């Protein structure tokens, strides 16, 4: 995969497969500490320690285990190649939290890519899940919980063109605003 956003989409698909009803996607860019954090937290069925060990090992993952995340080992390798790590905290019946950390300025770090499209795909394509998207750029935070907006929709489908427009604009503007405000303040970044 070419973008971390595509990895996020893939990790979130695992949460959907785990029958989660609420999934929180968190992306934090801290240019002062030179860190990039990705987190996907769900309330799905969770995994045993054995399964967690399995999905973290690329050599164990085979076609038959693909449903529980071929992509996780790929993301783990990508994080470790950038002075980071990937960890999974999971409990059967409770849910799973996956965390990946990267050195933000690492030359091998994949670009974040099109974060907006990943979030829009998840929100609009999986109506049954309550999505929470948290984005932080240095000290600026954008948060979108789709619960209120879905309640307001009622019978109107998520794929109504006006709804698509609304969600796309909200996510795009939110992320861009968080990035712009920080830039305008003229913060000096440690890695520049």
């Amino acid at each position, binding site marked *: *995969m070419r973008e971390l956003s*595509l990895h996020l*989409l*893939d990790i979130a*698909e695992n949460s*959907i*497969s785990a029958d989660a009803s609420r999934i929180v996607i968190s992306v934090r860019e801290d240019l002062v500490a030179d860190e990039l954090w990705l987190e996907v937290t769900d309330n799905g069925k969770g995994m045993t320690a054995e399964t967690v060990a399995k999905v973290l090992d690329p050599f164990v993952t085979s076609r038959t285990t*693909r*449903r529980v*995340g*071929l*992509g996780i080992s790929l993301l783990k390798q990508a994080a470790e190649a950038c002075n980071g790590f990937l960890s999974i905290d999971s409990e059967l019946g409770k849910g799973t939290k996956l965390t990946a950390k990267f050195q933000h300025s690492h030359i091998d770090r994949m670009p974040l890519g*099109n974060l907006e*499209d*990943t979030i*829009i*795909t*998840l929100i*609009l*394509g*999986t*109506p049954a899940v309550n999505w929470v998207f948290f984005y932080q750029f240095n000290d600026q935070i954008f948060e979108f919980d789709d619960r*209120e*907006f879905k309640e*307001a*929709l*009622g*019978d*109107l*489908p*998520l*794929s*109504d*063109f*006006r*709804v*698509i*427009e*609304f969600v*796309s*604009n909200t996510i795009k503007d939110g992320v861009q605003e968080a990035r712009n405000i920080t830039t305008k303040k003229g913060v000096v970044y440690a890695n520049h």
Partner: protein
Amino acid sequence: MPTIKSIDDLKRLREEAQKVKELRDQTGKTQIIVGMGTVGIAAGARETLKSILTFIEEQRLPDIILRQTGNIGLGGQDPVVQVILPNAETVTYGKITPAMATRIMEEHVVKGNIIQEFRIEA
């Protein structure tokens, strides 16, 4: 219809939509499903889905249900797109690029003509 800027706008839109719904016959909706497994994502399924969303938005198409799902289970055919017109059978398309998805929207979803050369056995 003005652009939606707030939750209140959405609520108004919902009320309007309900009125229209009551007036109209229950003709059903078109369903479009995009496979979004690991392989699909790596093959560009997100961009394919985005092009479908963009088409719906730009053409202001009503009555479409778009969903994404995990692996559809057709190895080597990703990105996979399925179209189900009201009262019609499921048509499965394979290796669908964003440009091909736009054509499926124009030909199949809008005009009702299945594009045989994109079709795969499901």
